[in-house]
């Protein structure tokens, strides 16, 4: 199981990679493995400002449905075209490469101090053990 050191993590198993005031958000390798084969990702919040811990989308796996939560407050500025049904729709990329090609949204962070409330790789690894 991978826990890249350059990411911050939530207890809901999202990760965020921050560059300046822009963050890329996805779900962890642990999350995708718990969900199993992902068949659809719904994100219809592009352009919206969403508070930390609020839902920005939904993942459908064969076995279960799971909401996606914002690790930090911000405005959703992009949805990964690779998994967007309008653009080609290959959500399996989240199973295959959760920290890379399987990223889900890009956000413009509204409060950088919120990053301090997230877990680092060591703390997240401890959580999912």
């Amino acid at each position, binding site marked *: 199981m991978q826990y890249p050191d350059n990411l911050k993590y939530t207890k809901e198993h999202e990760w965020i990679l921050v560059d300046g005031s822009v963050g890329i958000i996805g779900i962890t390798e642990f999350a995708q*493995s718990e969900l*199993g*084969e992902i*068949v*659809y990702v*719904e994100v219809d919040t592009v352009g919206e400002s969403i508070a930390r811990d609020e*839902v920005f989308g*939904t993942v*459908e*796996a*064969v*076995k*279960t*449905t799971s*909401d996606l939560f914002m690790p930090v407050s911000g405005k959703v500025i992009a949805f990964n075209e690779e998994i967007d*049904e309008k653009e080609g729709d290959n959500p399996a990329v989240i199973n295959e490469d959760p920290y890379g090609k399987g990223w889900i949204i890009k956000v413009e962070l509204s409060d950088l101090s919120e990053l301090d409330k997230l877990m680092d790789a060591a703390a997240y690894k401890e959580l999912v053990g």
Partner: protein
Amino acid sequence: MDTLKHTPLTTIHQSLGARMAPFAGYLMPISYAGIREEHMAVRNGVGVFDVTHMGEFIVRGRQALDLVQAVTSNDASKLAIGQAQYSCLPNGEGGIVDDLLVYRLPEEMCSEGEQAFLLVVNASNLAKDWEWINRHNQYDTRLIDISDETGLIAVQGPKAVQVLQRLTDIDLAAIPYYHFVKGTIAGIDNVLISATGYTGSGGFELYTENDKLPALWEAVFQAGEPDDIQPAGLGARDTLRLEMGYCLYGNDINDTTSPLEAGLGWITKLKKGPFIGRDLMVAQKEAGLTRKLVGFTVKDRRVPRHDYVIESESGETIGIVTSGTQSPNLDIPIGMGYVASPYAAAGSTIYVVAGSKRLEAEVCPMPFYRKES
């Protein structure tokens, strides 16, 4: 603390890298290579499930048939030796204690004038069923719980018969659906070889003693190697049964659902004579059903799930989802649920509430999946 029961195959599942999870008190394999891959292996080839968690009771005695007839809804008097039937245990209050298979066993294990049946029940209901049937046993017959000694694997799929045939002299293709024989397979004696399953793709269920199950599993996988035999978990078992519209106890049927509402009228033989719950069902049939279990397809990418509310177009609550999944064969979301009778006809439009969204769905005939000819 680990209080979960293991099956004789648990260490094999773990060595195969299965994702394991608790189910009905057992640590069971949910999936190995992935639900869809296992599902398609069963549809197109052959897959093997460990279903040792299922419960098995022997009913034996001079009045074994009378007891079985009193507690089950189907007509067990119609069973020939070597035949099985799907049935349920009505609870006398309009609901279902459990659904089960009833096998009529050969009488060689009986004394003169006795009959013997094997009841195969859901693991999650085993204790409840045992108490229920014993409570209603006013007959010269006795129940024996052989669940803890009995192992069970289901070898399912169109290639199951050719794979298993390599392991036995019994002509397997000659065993009709819902019939069984007891015999030697893979050098193991007294295996109950049953042409049943919960997948809709044919195959066999093999009952043997627990200590012989690992050898049977290994022999089946060796024999199946040329046919790319795959282990399959409870995840694929669920998608396979749901595509067929088979009920799952705890999801689609329970203590409050009537067999008639659930579409199980075909195993409810109201004319066979008295049995528990019969009068209520006769009354329900005469009065007409207020709700029915239906299948539906969703015209959206979101997947319906157990307990999602079903609404009419105007937003009135008309039912509830009992099962749902992304169908691996049809590649669309499918579900089952109870709806008010006016909405139960195929072609009716209903709406499934998934969080803040309403998903348009269409009631359709089941099974969802039919074999291509």
